[in-house]
């Protein structure tokens, strides 16, 4: 197990290293002087030289890469071009808002999805099973940002049940501000998780430990809830881990639509002002988040199911 964990995290580190290097080289390979682009056409030559030196762009490329990694290992992602603040500070100030949103989305969609899937599996081929299947398929298809826009239009602008802008202050207000964006992000996951849980439930229900539990005369309700469901929800863990990238992507859009603070809003605002260090920092942090969550999902899976350890 330890062996698997080391190998898995080694691979993650390697992937992250290649990804970051590729991104670094991509930024340098772009035609045009980044300093000129950042400062605009009216900047004086002195100002340009100053910024070039400040960003270390006058050094050879391999040295820039070394310096970049040196700084990165010390937790330094560079400096914001405009405010002079540390990019690390700025990104980590916004990150909790995005994580809060992603967590809320997973929480409601996974609970509902697992409940729907478990119920459908316990009562296969009934009307409710069919309705759940139809809902699953239809909701899987809805892109989060379209749902977010329609939800904004209906529930915030038209009915005015929920606030349209911002993240709110204080616990209840924040929760209230989370409802619509979390709804938009989670909606397509409900159906997906329900289908997943239903399929794995049906498989687990036929296994011997469930049959044994039944043979012992344990109530059917308890068999389903305790003996079958506990194992059947394992795939959900993997799917959420691997789905972190989708969740992050959806969160970017939800943050824009509902004008919420967060990583997504930070990136978009930085792109429009051509603030490359912040774009780079946010993409790096979100990539790291994604890589780590995928690895964690693999680990949890391997911990619970020894067969998965040899798959890589």
């Amino acid at each position: 197990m330890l062996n698997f964990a080391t190998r898995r995290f080694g691979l993650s580190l390697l992937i992250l290293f290649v990804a970051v290097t590729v991104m670094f080289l991509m930024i340098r390979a772009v035609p045009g002087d980044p300093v000129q682009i950042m400062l605009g056409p009216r900047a004086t030559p002195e100002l340009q030289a100053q910024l070039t030196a400040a960003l270390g762009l006058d050094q050879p490329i391999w040295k820039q890469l070394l310096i970049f990694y040196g700084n990165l290992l010390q937790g330094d992602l560079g400096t914001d071009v405009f405010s002079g603040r540390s990019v690390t500070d700025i990104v980590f100030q916004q990150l909790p808002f995005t994580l809060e949103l992603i967590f809320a989305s997973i929480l409601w969609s996974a609970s509902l999805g697992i409940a729907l899937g478990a119920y459908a599996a316990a009562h296969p081929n009934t009307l409710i099973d069919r309705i759940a299947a139809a809902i699953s398929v239809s909701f899987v298809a809805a892109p989060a940002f379209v749902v977010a826009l329609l939800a904004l239009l209906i529930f915030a602008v038209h009915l005015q049940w929920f606030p349209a802008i911002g993240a709110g202050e204080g616990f209840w207000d924040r929760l209230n501000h989370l409802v619509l964006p979390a709804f938009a992000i989670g909606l397509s996951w409900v159906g997906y998780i329900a289908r997943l849980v239903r399929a794995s439930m049906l498989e687990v229900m036929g296994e011997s430990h469930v049959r044994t539990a039944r043979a012992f005369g344990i109530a059917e309700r308890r068999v389903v809830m305790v003996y079958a469901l506990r194992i059947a929800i394992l795939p959900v863990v993997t799917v959420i881990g691997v789905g972190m990238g989708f969740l992050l992507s959806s969160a970017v859009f939800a943050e824009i639509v509902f004008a919420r603070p967060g990583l997504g809003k930070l990136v978009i605002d930085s792109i429009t002002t051509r603030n490359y260090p912040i774009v780079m920092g946010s993409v790096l942090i979100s990539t790291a988040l994604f890589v780590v969550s995928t690895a964690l999902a693999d680990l949890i899976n391997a911990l619970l199911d020894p067969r998965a350890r040899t798959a890589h």
Partner: protein
Amino acid sequence: MEKSRSELGQIIIGVARDPLGLMGLIIVGIIVFCAIFAAWIVPYDPIAMDIKSRMQGPSAAHLLGTDQLGRDTFSRVIAGGQVALKVALPAVFGAMAIGLTLGMIAGYGPKWLDNLLMLFFDTIRSFPTVMFALAVVALVGPSLQTVVFVVMATSIPTYGRVARTQTLTLRNSEFILAERSMGASMSRILGVHMLPNIIGVLAVLAAMDIPTVIALEAGLSFLGLGVKPPTPSWGALLKDGYSLIRQTPWLVVGGGLPIILATLGFTFLGESLRDVVDPKLRKQR
């Protein structure tokens, strides 16, 4: 040739027998039809401004109302479908072709090349799609080509991995061994014998990938980082509708519903295709 045509016919019949598949076929058919004949269907020029009739609600003259520049929303929805397919089809086919080639090489070639290609796939996959798209757009600027490039780059690994797995399973099958013992070249084995066995699975994957691509194009255009105005795109409609959501809410509906419909159509079609082409795939997911 005759045989493959009847096979294709059987696949279409199989899809049409499945109610969801039929629905998908109809929706996709309507979208493709509207995209091809957009120039004849649209009642107004989708980029012609008419300031006098700006921000009008839905009426007989303008089925879905007009936007802040007086452009007819219905015409822009129809023309937007054309733009969506113009991005989605080349991107998906390009990604499929490249992913297929790399995947087959990874599966059939030497081990070090396999490892290298897998690392390449894993690296691309490690960027969250939208974040990667935003980084690229930030660097090279928004345009239709950028969207196509981003979509291609991010979906190559999916095709590559599936093609690799398929190649690995086929690699030691008897007919390949027989062919190899007769001295067939690598390109002949891959192109003539492996390709027909892999392409079906990838085609299913491609059909299911199209909605993701359409959504990504619309998403980037919604952020103002996709196709440039005044090009009619569903995402651009959403962007206009969002900034004036109290005045022209019909733009949000006009841009949003086609995206949902297209996603539904291609998803139904893809799932039904998968069941017809290769029922085994269903269990793998």
